[in-house]
């Protein structure tokens, strides 16, 4: 089966090509959507096969590299089009193809009747293909294809409603921000390549070879530089501070896209990349610290913003940012497994949440449409009490929310708690740990708060739309709800494969599974940190604490939005500035416009009108003008009078002779 790994990206590609070329002819949505879903599902099956086969192998042999064809060979630089299968990529494969197939399926229902249906599925398949390349890439360059490819597809999908200006802007913003990240990625790659090559004559960008060669790398120094660059790439792709602003805007895209790209898969690429290169990151303690801090900061920062948003998807978007922050926190504290674990669980419940919101929006839209009302179907202030109207959506949504809030027994709990514990107990950052843990904890609290705020505003209380529209509210069709249910199920039980040893009911399959991948990294870690043992009591305590935190968050939400909905209003009235700041996302977009965008345009104008036109052309045309001017003057010497001519001749003669007198 491993031999056929190349099929995995191929299927979606075929789907994309098929739909791209023929989709316009085939009007039949069933065929288009069917083909697309089928293709991604095929890759899912292959991935399952591969996973099985890997499980079959002994732990140390679970690495397989497949060279498809040589891509760029130039001098000592070699980059094959090659795929790497190891436990890590296997996990990702499962997530991407699995969640992917569900969302494809969902989309068939959700996108029903959209014009450019085929375009949508082309892009979606294309995305799946790029994502799989990213995951499977056995060297940085192949990964980079995927890396940019997903960026491209997210550009296309965000700009799917291209006639909306906001969509176009969001798309461009997303791509450019990602480009900034890619800049980092490239520089990081160059640095590693060049340093290893010039110092140890190991010219490679292949992960496995790098892993072998990583013993040659020093601690800190150039590695810090390289890893920081890589991390910049990660922040771009995974919407971390400072490059997170594109993700909320990306909600301009169709909801399934948000679910697939901006929650489950693409945005986690950064985390995956760090995991993939853990052995390098671990060698740069400073970078680890930066990662951890940025992660924690993003987690709390985004969470705060999330509390004040009224657009259902935007709330989810910020929560995604925040959750990604958790993952980076995990990476930063060396808890790679936990990070990847959270990545997976998050993929489940966040996808479920997005799809749920999608289903809600779908319903709302439908209802408002019938009611000829122009209210925003995404604005939670228009919703409320939907639980009766759409029970399945409500149920799945609720469980996912509980999961993300971190209530024990749900997938989110295991992963997030693990991260918090590691943040507290990791050997890397010394006293910083408390801070990291604290931030994480508060962020978790906020998460619980705004997620339940969302649930309460959407599904509880009184329905705030016109009665006329209300009659048209009803549950979405099966093709939409089936994925919801599957994901809901996963959101609940997906976490059990990674249950902490502490609870000891099940072995931590997940950790054992990934252990070989991160072995090297951990071994490096051993060399400069000493892991001090923490008592179980402490761990228990913290676990309890995090539960309490979650509950607190939930109850606050309950108080504010069920018991006495008046308070928020009063609160905002009390602190208008604060609320406005939070509501306007701390004005970060404006800041960036002020700092980067406008200066660039200004510089462009200046250079163009100022330098190009004035200086360079000024000189060029100036010379021409001067010459013409001289010409105009010289020609006047040709006065037409004989004695002037004679004079010039005589003068010439005199001067010539004089020259030889005085020479």
């Amino acid at each position, binding site marked *: 089966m491993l031999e056929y790994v190349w099929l995995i990206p191929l299927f979606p590609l075929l789907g994309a090509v098929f739909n791209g070329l023929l989709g316009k002819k085939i009007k039949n949505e069933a065929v288009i959507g069917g083909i697309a879903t089928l293709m991604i599902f095929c890759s899912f099956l292959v991935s399952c096969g591969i996973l099985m086969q890997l499980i079959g192998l002994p732990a140390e042999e679970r690495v397989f590299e497949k060279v498809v064809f040589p891509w760029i060979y*130039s001098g000592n630089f070699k980059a094959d089009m090659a795929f790497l299968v190891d436990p890590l990529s296997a996990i990702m494969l499962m997530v991407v193809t699995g969640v992917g197939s569900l969302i494809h399926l969902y989309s068939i229902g959700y996108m029903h009747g959209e014009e450019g249906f085929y375009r949508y599925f082309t892009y979606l398949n294309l995305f799946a293909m790029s994502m799989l390349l990213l995951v499977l890439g056995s060297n940085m360059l192949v990964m980079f294809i995927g890396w940019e490819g997903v960026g491209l597809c997210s550009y296309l999908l965000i700009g799917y409603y291209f006639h909306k200006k906001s969509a176009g802007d969001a798309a461009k913003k997303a791509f450019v921000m990602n480009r900034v990240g890619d800049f980092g990625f490239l520089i990081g790659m*160059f640095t590693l390549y060049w340093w290893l090559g010039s110092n140890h004559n190991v010219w490679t960008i292949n992960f496995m070879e790098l892993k072998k060669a990583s013993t040659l790398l020093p601690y800190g120094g150039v590695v810090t530089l390289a890893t920081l660059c890589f991390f910049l790439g990660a922040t771009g792709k995974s919407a971390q501070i400072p490059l997170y602003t594109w993700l909320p805007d990306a909600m301009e895209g169709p909801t399934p896209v948000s679910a697939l790209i901006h929650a489950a898969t693409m945005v986690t690429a950064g985390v995956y990349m760090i995991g993939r290169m853990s052995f390098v990151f671990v060698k740069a303690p400073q970078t680890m610290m930066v990662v951890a801090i940025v992660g924690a900061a993003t987690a709390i920062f985004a969470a705060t913003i999330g509390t004040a948003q009224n657009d259902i998807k935007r709330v989810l978007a910020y929560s995604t940012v925040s959750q990604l922050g958790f993952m980076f926190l995990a990476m930063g504290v060396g808890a790679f497994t936990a990070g990847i674990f959270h990545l997976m669980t998050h993929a489940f419940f966040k996808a479920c949440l997005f799809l749920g919101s999608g289903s809600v929006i779908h319903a709302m839209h439908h209802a408002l449409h019938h009611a000829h009302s122009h209210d925003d179907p995404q604005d939670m202030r228009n919703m409320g009490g939907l639980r009766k109207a759409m029970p399945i959506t409500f149920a799945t949504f609720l469980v996912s929310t509980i999961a993300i809030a971190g209530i024990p027994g749900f997938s989110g709990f295991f992963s997030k708690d693990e991260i918090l514990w590691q943040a507290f107990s990791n050997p890397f950052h010394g006293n910083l740990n408390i801070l990291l843990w604290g931030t994480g904890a508060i962020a978790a609290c906020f998460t619980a708060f705004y997620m339940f705020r969302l649930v309460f505003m959407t599904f509880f209380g009184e329905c705030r739309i016109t009665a006329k529209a209300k009659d048209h509210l009803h549950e979405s069709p099966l093709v939409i709800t089936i994925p919801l249910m599957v994901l809901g199920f996963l959101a609940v039980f997906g976490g059990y494969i990674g249950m902490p040893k502490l609870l000891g009911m099940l072995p931590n399959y997940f950790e054992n599974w990934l252990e070989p991948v991160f072995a090297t990294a951990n071994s490096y870690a051993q060399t400069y940190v000493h892991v001090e043992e923490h008592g179980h009591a402490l761990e228990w305590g913290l676990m309890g604490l995090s539960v309490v935190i979650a509950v607190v968050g939930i109850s606050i939400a309950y108080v504010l939005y069920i018991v006495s909905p008046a308070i928020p209003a009063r609160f905002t009235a009390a602190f208008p500035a604060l609320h406005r700041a939070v509501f306007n996302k701390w004005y970060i977009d404006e800041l960036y416009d002020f700092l980067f965008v406008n200066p660039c345009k200004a510089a462009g104008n200046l250079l163009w009108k100022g330098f190009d036109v004035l200086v360079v052309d000024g000189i060029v045309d100036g010379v021409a003008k001067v010459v013409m001017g001289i010409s105009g003057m010289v020609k006047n010497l040709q006065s037409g009078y004989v004695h002037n001519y004679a004079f010039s001749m005589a003068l010439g003669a005199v001067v010539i002779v004089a020259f030889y007198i005085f020479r």
Partner: protein
Amino acid sequence: MNDTILSLMTFTPLIGVLILFFIPKDSHSILRGVAVAVALVTFFISLPLVTGFVTNAEYQFVQDVPWIQAGPFRMNYHVGIDGISLWLVILTTFIMPIAILSTWTAVEEKVKEYMICLLLLEVGMLGAFISLDLFLFYIFWEVMLIPMYFIIGIWGGKQKIYAAIKFFIYTMAGSVLMLVALIFLYFKAGGGDFNITRFYGLGLDPATQTWLFLAFAFAFAIKVPLFPVHTWLPLAHTEAPTAGSVILAAIMLKMGTYGYVRFAMPLFPDAVDRFTPLMATLAVIGIIYAALVAMVQEDVKKLVAYSSVAHLGFVMLGIFALNQQGVSGGMLQMLNHGVSTGALFLIVGFIYERRHTRLITDFGGLSKQMPVFATIFMIVTFSSIGLPGTNGFVGEFLVLIGAYESKLRWFAVIATSGVILSAVYMLWMFQRVMFGELDNPKNQKLVDLNAREIVIMLPLLALIFIMGLYPTPFIEKMSPAIDKMIQQSKQKQVAAVTLPQMPAMPMAPNGMDMTMPPTMNK
């Protein structure tokens, strides 16, 4: 066959010109047909070059016949190609038919003269790429200007005359200095013939090399165009008819970079060593500068023009990195730029033909009206941005990594940030043209691309992906030649013969070993 194929290829268009002379000037379709046919024939003649090319550093398909023999001078008709010129030649023969096809409806009057100019242009360009004799090269180099001058000046836009003259004199000013340097070099080399291989590794003292390099570099820099002397390009591009811009961008600009790779650098290694920082600086400035300026352009064509300044900046950076990656990246980037920017100009031409405007503000939401066009446009845009999987990426990446591992590291870093900017201006333009509301009524009755236009674009699109996903054949054919070139450009010899400097003062013959003081009495 092997030794005549190059000449055959080069002068087939000339035969075409002769044929065109005898076709009545108002039977347009015949004229166009013949022109395209000739261009295609040329292309097919050029194909055996690829198949027959043996991958090594030698010049191949060489033809060397004495041409001028007078006094001390020996000029030969000495042509041949190696890995460096091979692909450029192919690019030329490949682009030409497309360019001619693109004018099918664009040019309605004076078709005959137009076609003649195009074919003459092809002769000039091919000749310049295959010449192995400096003098011959210079001849072709100059010959190229004439038809281009007419193409811009006669069939151009509003400012056509200004643009044409500016183009001509700018280039002329550069190349005449090159002529002086060329002659000087010749006498330094001690007469004989102008075969470039004689000039390689000629132990000139650094001072002389500096002067000569400057002269050559200036001429080529104008053609590239390198940062401060690029201002003729946007003008020429905007004013030229579509085919003109396509050829200008796709092929003629390459003359400059090719000149560096073939002449300026291998001939004067010491000078190269000395001027690398300067050239790299200019290249990098060009990248950033052009990107910034492109961002604020109102005219699509001008924007694309500036974008090609940026791309050529990458090329320059690559070739001055002077290592396998850098140079082959540069060479690839030349080809890529030829393909994608050529395609971009064609695209601009398409909408210009439909709307007779190129102002971005006049467009918007075209995707709705012309989906096929949108798709093609998008692919080309992304290839020009350098998205992995398209041709643009491979070249850019190799250039950057090459520069990074050479001593131009920091330049590489800055240049990489150009990658971001390129995304900004291209996507912004794309968005403003293709996305948004289709509000302008004129745009609402736009028709999508017709068969001919699609046929024009297809080969380019194909190349975009082929070169992006499987560049190996291109790289491996050129790499031996590039290795050789790097060897020549890196060697730093002390001046074998100590010769006096270039005279700072005008008069007083300096005792060049060539000077034969004439015996006055007879």
